[in-house]
């Protein structure tokens, strides 16, 4: 009888651990046990280090994604620990789209969330699309309660994927949207999209802006 109790207890703990890690949070040190730390130098390619994002971001429907890139598993180096492999592949009939954002008006914020031994990240993508035309208003209407996947590109051409097999990017706030109060004010839509992730990665795959065919 005593033996039975121990098994039940152990099973419960395992299930909770799987569930928690399935959510992506509480990543344990076991996954990094094979990794050696390394010196980190200046690491600027040809001295380039411009801030800001490119003036186009990419978006699509989260449930339109067929295959997601793979997060590193037991990476051997700290560089691999920050890199996803593979591509975002869309389902048949789906594609990703482009959204223009005003120069120097888009940015990606990376915030740490939760408490000790459970830390993760929240990525906040701020964009400002100029004008208040019908397409933009329709975009805001269509995305405000939708699960999204988004990709932002920094000035060095490095991509950041917002969305994974478990969680989507969501429209979280509107900032600075409207006509502005003066003729030299800013007319357009300011939008913030949020995505929570256990880890931070560079997305090194492709972005299909053309419709997928033949995949599931």
């Amino acid at each position, binding site marked *: 009888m005593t033996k039975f109790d121990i098994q039940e207890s152990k099973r419960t703990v395992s299930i909770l651990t799987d569930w928690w890690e399935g959510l992506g949070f509480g990543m344990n040190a076991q996954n990094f046990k094979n990794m050696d730390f390394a010196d980190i130098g200046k690491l600027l390619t040809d001295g380039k280090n411009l801030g800001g994002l490119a003036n186009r971001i*990419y978006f699509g429907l989260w449930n339109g994604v067929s295959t997601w890139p793979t997060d590193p598993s037991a990476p051997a180096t700290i560089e691999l620990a920050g890199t996803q492999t593979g*591509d975002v*592949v869309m389902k048949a009939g789906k*594609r990703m789209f482009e959204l223009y954002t005003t120069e120097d008006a888009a940015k990606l914020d990376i915030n740490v969330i939760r408490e000790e031994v459970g830390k993760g990240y929240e990525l906040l993508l701020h964009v400002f699309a100029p004008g208040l035309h019908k397409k933009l208003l329709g975009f805001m209407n269509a995305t405000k309660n939708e699960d999204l996947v988004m990709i932002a590109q920094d000035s060095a*051409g490095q*991509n950041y994927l917002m969305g994974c097999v478990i969680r989507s990017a969501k429209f979280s706030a509107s900032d600075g949207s409207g006509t502005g109060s003066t003729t030299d004010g800013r007319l357009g839509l300011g939008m913030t999209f949020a995505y929570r992730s256990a880890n931070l990665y560079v997305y*090194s*795959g*492709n*972005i*299909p*802006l*053309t*419709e*997928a*065919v*033949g*995949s599931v």
Partner: protein
Amino acid sequence: MIWTDYFTLIKVLPGRIVTPRFGTLDFSDPYLPVGKIQTLFDNGFPYLKTTWLEKDTLYPEPPKAVENISGISRELASPVKKPSKKKT
């Protein structure tokens, strides 16, 4: 020769794809440089497959060794062992 002689676009309709290496490429344009397309393919670009022409010209196969051509020779090199009879 245009790139579509050597490669075929798969899984997507001909159109734009943002690549990490070359930026946005419009694959509905048959005059994209073959070198760029080949580099993408060599780096695991998931939306391309090769045509028979590409296999023959861009990636010619090295001459095969005699052992690889002849199934008989391979057999001679590593003959299949017959199952040994069980001693009763």
